[in-house]
Each structure stands twice: as structure tokens, then as C-alpha cells.
């Protein structure tokens, strides 16, 4: 079961850097990320890192609102149409996303789709019905 680290951030100069400084000081490597902004002046930073628990703890200790959030990660082929293949399967399974992003694992061969859903358990059940299974944690966090 894989996790991303989600951080509540005000949209103010220097606040993003405050997060990356904590990660740097703790030797944490970022694999992928998304930054969402709302019209209300705040947003959420989602980070896929090599050591989520350690990152979350360090960020909380530094005073930030940070949480571990379960995600689903699926493998896909790194070539044109690779994302479409996996999205077609997920759509057929009935999975709806709150947020999604990706990373390349091996150039031209393998990539990773990370999906944040409203109901994790339901999504897991839906994908298992079409014999689709999330990747293991080492694949998600590793090199």
C-alpha cells in the first residue's frame, strides 16, 4: 500500500521552498509531485517521495500541516498511447480520480500512473474485478 505526502500550503512567496528545505535537510528524494491551487488563496502540494513516513514526520515537526494519503499506482508502458491504455481499463472498472500524476521508471519502457481517489477501498475492489493490481511499494518509491 503506497502513500503520497500531502501538504496544506498558503499561496505565498517562499512557502513551497519551506517544504523542500525540510526534505533536503532530511535527505528525502522527491520522485514526482503536483501542486494544486484554489481561488481561496491556498492549495495542496502532493509529493511522491522515497521515504513517505520520514518525510511526513519531519514536515509535521517543522510546523506544517502534512498528511500521508493512500494512493493507487499502476504500471504503464512508456510509449505513445501507454496512458490511454491504462485509463481505458480504469474507466471500464468505474474508477474516478480526485488527482493523478505520473513518473517515468525506465525511459521508453516503463512508467507509473499515480491515482488519488475518494474511496480507496472501493477503487481497489473495482480494479481487482478486471484483474488489474497496483504496483508494490518498492516500485513506487524506488529508483
Amino acid at each position: 500500500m503506497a502513500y503520497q505526502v500531502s501538504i496544506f500550503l498558503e499561496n505565498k512567496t517562499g512557502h513551497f521552498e519551506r517544504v523542500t528545505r525540510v526534505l533536503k535537510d532530511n535527505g528525502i528524494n522527491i520522485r514526482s509531485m503536483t501542486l494544486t491551487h484554489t481561488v481561496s488563496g491556498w492549495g495542496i502540494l502532493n509529493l511522491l517521495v522515497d521515504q513517505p513516513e520520514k518525510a511526513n514526520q519531519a514536515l509535521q515537526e517543522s510546523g506544517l500541516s502534512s498528511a500521508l494519503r493512500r494512493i493507487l499506482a499502476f504500471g504503464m508502458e512508456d510509449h505513445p498511447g501507454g496512458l490511454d491504455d491504462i485509463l481505458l481499463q480504469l474507466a471500464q472498472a468505474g474508477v474516478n480520480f480526485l488527482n493523478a500524476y505520473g513518473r517515468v521508471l525506465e525511459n521508453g519502457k516503463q512508467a507509473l500512473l499515480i491515482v488519488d481517489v475518494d474511496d480507496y477501498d472501493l477503487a481497489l475492489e473495482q480494479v481487482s474485478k478486471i484483474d488489474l493490481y497496483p504496483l508494490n511499494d518498492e516500485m513506487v518509491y524506488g529508483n
Partner: protein
Amino acid sequence: MYWEREFETLERNKLRSLQLERLKRTVKQAIQSPFYKELYQRKGISADRLRHVEAIRELPFTTKQDLREHFPYGFLSLPKRDIIRLHSSSGTTGNPTVIFHNRHDISSWANLMARSLYCAGVRDTDVFQNICGYGLFTGGLGFQYGIERLGCLSIPAGAGNSLRQIKLMQDYGTTAIHAIPSYLGRLYEVFQAEGLDPRKDTDLRLFVIGAEPHTEEQRQRIEDMFGVKAYNSFGLSEMNGPGVAFECTEQAGLHIWEDAFLIEIIDPETLEPVPDGEFGELVMTTLDREAMPLIRYRTRDITRIIPGVCACGRTHARLDRITGRSDDMFIVKGCNVFPMQIEGVLLKVPEVGSDYLITLERINGVDEMIVEVEVKKDWFNGDIARLDRLSKFITHQIRDEVLTKPIVRLVEPGSIPKSAGKAVRVLDKRVFDSVKL
């Protein structure tokens, strides 16, 4: 020129005599209420002891706290069967401030309102659109009765819905409007968006603005945008509502109707009168109210009496603009707000901390109340929709409490100064000035 020449131009010494006569009557009437009866008996006060108006200084003050503690009927000086209307403050925290009127009070208020409008140049030939909330808020019915008493064609338009407001103006040839100043900037934008120029496409000639602090610059901008004259008004629900003090066409301060209200300006610390023409807290006594007289009511508004006489010939004193408050209440979009009300709402929302910061700012000509609150760390789970729902929930809760919609900003924990001692809870970035003569 005058609605009631005999009262409006009464010589000062005769005005003083009239005030004394009415003050005695008021004290006698007030003693009929449970609150004043107990208070005055305890202090051995009777109307006969008042030999001149200044003797009012020997009477105790009345505060908003007194009104709340003796809610609902403690100040009623007449049997309930004689009462025909009440107006009440908003709010769900603590007791509201409620004022009762009998038939005489409503009629007297309507007359003061008509006098005020006439003094600003409104005539019975005007088509008057009252862009103001009706209901418990005094600005709706208060103006309505005055407009009708004066004899204008009244349009009780109510607040909001700018497109409909513009349509009403065009359909019926509105010439005069009452609205809060910050709304007029918004209304002008809607005119522009519709490709209309209020200077050419309407018959507007006169605005009455008030219920919200504003600057001379704002007034001038409104006058330029709409091609009208804009007159400042002042009132407070405890003193009926609108129609307490109004600008005449000289635009040199607001005439406060001294045959209906006895005014004092005191130092809010020492409670002693300030020297003539100096700023202090406005204290008011009703002189023509039967159902619920109030004696030496502390309005908490900071202002002064403008020295000298007005070129219009009215002898009634002129109030300067309200420059501040001697308590922490503030006014935004015509609504009176106490920080305690915001605090009360936030305390009931477990997802946020108890620290908050209210910033009052003029954004594109409109006054906004920005409320910053900290999201609790252990509640945060990374779900953006959940945060958005929380933000909307708090916005609605505050709106229900204070009747104006805030801009709620969720902020990171620890970013608001802790409430140790006298922490700053309200930051007013708006600029206000006093009358320049």
C-alpha cells in the same frame, strides 16, 4: 427649503427649552419600564430634579449590555398591547438588541426621516428607489416610511440583484436612491458590463449613502460615476435607525435632529464631557419616543460637533463623520460586526483553531471582510474537496451570524498570532477621514 421650518430653524435657546420639556417627559415615561424604574428608584432620581438640560449629566448611562441583559421587555415603558413594531439586531450569539415602537414612535420616526430626506434635497416629485434590506434591519422600513411621508413615488427594491435594480431605474425613471456606498461601486460595474452609462441612460440625480463608514473621496467618486449629488446619512437602530442625522445640501456635516435627540460628546475613558468641537463618544437620549425611551445611551461612535452655524439656516448641531468606535465593533457593508460574533462561530467549528484575524480591506471599491483561520493539523488529510467544503461551511456560518458574506481564508497553523493578552484581532486597512471645511 425646510420640511418643518419652525423646528428646523428654532433659535438655540428655544431649542434648549423644548429639549428640557421633552427630557422631563422622557424621564417620566422611562420610569414606567422595569429597567429605569429599578435604576432610578435605587439612585433616587426623578424628573422634577431636572432644572436644566445639563442636569442630564447626573443620570447614569445606558449601555448595549443593559439592553441585552434586560432582553426582551425590560425597557418597555408601555403595555405590550400598545406596541406595533419591533426592530432587532442580527446574531445568534447572546441576546439581540431589540427596539419597540408604538404608533406615535413610528409616525415620529417617519417624520424625522422625511425631514432628513427633504433636507438633502429630495422632493415629492422624486422617484425614490430604496436599495436596502427590508425586514428586521431598520434601513428598509425606516426609509420606506420616510419616502412615503415625503410623498415620493417609492420603489421598495430591497438589496442586491444589480441587473434588476438597473431595470427598475430604467422602467420607472428613478431619480433618487438610498444605498450603502460600497454597493454603488459594484452597481456601477454592472452598468458598465451592460454597456450603459448611468449619466446618460438614467434620470438619477441624488443619492443618499450611509450605514457604512466611507471617505470624502469615495463620495466624490460615486458622484462622478453616476453624475449625482450624494448625501451622507447617520443612524443607529437604538435611536430608531436612519433619520438621526443627515447632510443638508451644503454637504458640511450631518444635522442631528436635536428636538428628537439630546446629544452629548464624552471622553470614553473619564466619561466627562469633552470641550466643544473635540472628538469623543456620542451619547444620545431619545426625546420623542414613548414605547422605549433610552437615556444617555452610549453609542460607542466617535465623532464631534462641528463648530459654527450652517449656511442652510438650520440651527441643529452638525455631526462630523464617525471616525471610529470606543469598543471593538466595526461596520462592513452596512452590517455591524463584533469580533466576538466571529469568535463564537469559529468556536463551534472543531476543524479550525480558535485564533483568527479579521482584515477589513477595500477591494475594487468594495469593502470586504477577510477572516483568516488556521486549519488544525490533525484534521488535515490531504483532501482538497474536504478543505473547500470547510471553507464554504465557515463562510455560511459567519454570514448567518453577521448578515454579510466574509471572504474566508484557511491558513497554515501557527501563522496567526496567538491570543495572549490583547492580540490584534481586527486589522482595518480602510481609510476614513473627517469633514474638511
